[in-house]
């Protein structure tokens, strides 16, 4: 069992390394993480008053200055740290909670499933942003509050996806075999099933991080973050507060917005890559295309193009 399992894993890893989309995404993300960690040591002080407020890009200030006379480039770079930290932390927590609740719900079924699905569906149908706003406005502002609020409003989607995946695994033979051989439920869930959901968990993590970055920036833009810290969201908050639009100072909001978009897009690319490498239907389509004309044998993969339910 573990032999097969390892070979699938190693095939995925080599597949992802060879996948152009995934590699592009990973390189961009690593670059931004690198900037987030080391960037603030190199740039000018992002909080210092350096030049006339709202001055356009120049040699001293490559991306101009904002309404407080602070360097926009330095602000964009130091904003990466907390934004990415909150984004990825939220991503991990959302997947953990989703796997826990969705996993239990899908594995046990019956009453437990009824109750937990109800909980999941209630959270799914509740509009996220207004709920985040009231939560964030009552709690003291800061990264901890943001993470908590984002996790509370974001876990349900993942729980639902993981639940339905768990339900299909629950009816597989290897799970029945494990139950018959007397393994404990916890062990079956954690050791037997979860590793097989790895690609789903990975893409859930990435999806949740994209959501977390977007929602966090939105909340901070509304002024619900700690506006004295420097993040991408507070950068946009100050840009809008300092009338960046009405004075035509595009350089105060374009760099931050582009950074957010590039990070989200890179994460989406990684998700496309994971999908291409691990989705049986896409694998088989690719394998058909590559191998059928030359009639080569395919190592261990059964081509599946149609859905026979």
């Amino acid at each position, binding site marked *: 069992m573990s032999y097969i399992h390892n070979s699938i894993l190693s095939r995925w890893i080599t597949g992802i390394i060879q996948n152009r989309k995934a590699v592009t995404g990973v390189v961009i993300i690593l670059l931004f993480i690198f900037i987030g960690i080391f960037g603030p040591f190199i740039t000018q002080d992002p909080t210092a008053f350096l030049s006339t407020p709202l001055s356009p890009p120049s040699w001293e200030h490559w991306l101009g200055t904002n309404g407080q006379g602070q360097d926009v480039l330095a602000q964009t770079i130091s904003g990466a740290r907390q934004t990415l930290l909150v984004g990825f932390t939220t991503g991990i927590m959302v997947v953990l909670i989703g796997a826990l609740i969705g996993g239990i719900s899908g594995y046990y079924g019956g009453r437990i499933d009824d109750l937990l699905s109800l909980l999941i569906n209630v959270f*799914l149908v509740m*509009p*996220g942003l207004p709920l985040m706003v009231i939560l964030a406005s*009552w709690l*003291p502002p800061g990264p901890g509050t943001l993470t908590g609020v984002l996790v509370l409003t974001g876990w349900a989607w993942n729980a639902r996806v993981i639940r339905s995946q768990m339900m299909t695994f629950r009816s597989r033979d290897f799970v029945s075999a494990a139950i018959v051989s007397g393994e404990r439920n916890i062990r079956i869930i954690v050791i037997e099933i979860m590793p097989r959901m790895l690609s789903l968990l990975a893409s859930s993590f990435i999806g949740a991080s994209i959501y977390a970055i977007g929602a966090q920036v939105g909340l901070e833009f509304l002024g619900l973050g700690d506006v004295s810290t420097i993040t991408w969201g507070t950068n946009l908050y100050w840009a809008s507060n300092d009338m960046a639009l009405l004075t035509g100072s595009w350089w105060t909001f374009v760099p931050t917005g582009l950074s957010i*978009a590039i990070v*989200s897009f890179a994460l989406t690319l990684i998700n496309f890559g994971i999908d291409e490498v691990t989705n049986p239907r896409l694998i088989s389509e690719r394998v058909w295309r590559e191998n059928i004309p030359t009639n080569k044998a395919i190592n261990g993969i059964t081509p599946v193009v149609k859905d026979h339910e």
Partner: protein
Amino acid sequence: MNHSLNYLLRRLGFYFIAAWAALTLNFFIPRLMPGDPAAIIFARFRGKLKPEAMNALRETFGLTDEPLLGQYWSYLKSILQGDLGISIAYFPEPVTSIISSALLWTIFLAGFSLIISFSLGTLLGTIIAWNRSGKLDSFLPPALAFIGAFPYFWLAMVALYIFGFELSWFPLGHAYGNDVTPGFNIPFILSALYHAALPALTMILVSLGGWMLSMRNIMITTLGTDYIAFAHAKGLSSRLIMLRYAARNAILPNFTGFGMALGFVLSGALLTEIIFSYPGQGYLLLQAVRAQDFPLMQGLFMTITFAVLAANWIVDILILFFDPRTRK
């Protein structure tokens, strides 16, 4: 028919539970926060509020000396009577009257863009799934995925900057011009449409990709099924197969998604409205956040939740009509 009725009632029951959960969250959030909610509010507004405003606030939150359960009951009772409390920022205006005028604008803007984006996205998804090796299929999905990566409101900011500020093609804000009188007359309707155009366009642009991709994926699965192969074998025209055979079935999950998307779209619309100073719920939300107007914020949460729940139920009814499998 009995089965359908049963289904609708069950869904209605679920929405009641969801509404109750939202109400309960709304009640407990201020009370679960560290410290005493009354003390938090009063500390923030000390010296800024008149004594009668303070009293209204106390009443809104039911922060009396009653036990928690008693407070909860009187809270539920007042909500059922349509009483969401009194706004702090617009004292002594009740929250319901402030929200009701703004709600219409939000429903107009968000509903308008949601319907356009849904129809256009679904149609595009159908077409690119049909011509899967075409130019459109290799260009549109990545392009829209890239646009979708931008934060909703940020794209709106850039659009406002380019088309409103630099080119002056569109107005810089508000829902209608100063020179028209609100009412059912043609200048007002034209002005309202003109003012909604740019915010709606940005929202359509960002949400189009999602509809298109999900339609494309389901369409591809549907095109692989035997009954489509059979339809081809019968020699039916490809247009007929694409629209009447494949798309008609593939659209069903998208319909279910429609209800779910309402929540997201409304949330996104809130931020878009803020950028365009559009006098809907989002604009109010910003005012509420800025003024720390807790009753207004919670009222907005309640109305948006109820709107989303009601819309979901309507979608449930529509699905009964469109999908014969749900009414056996």
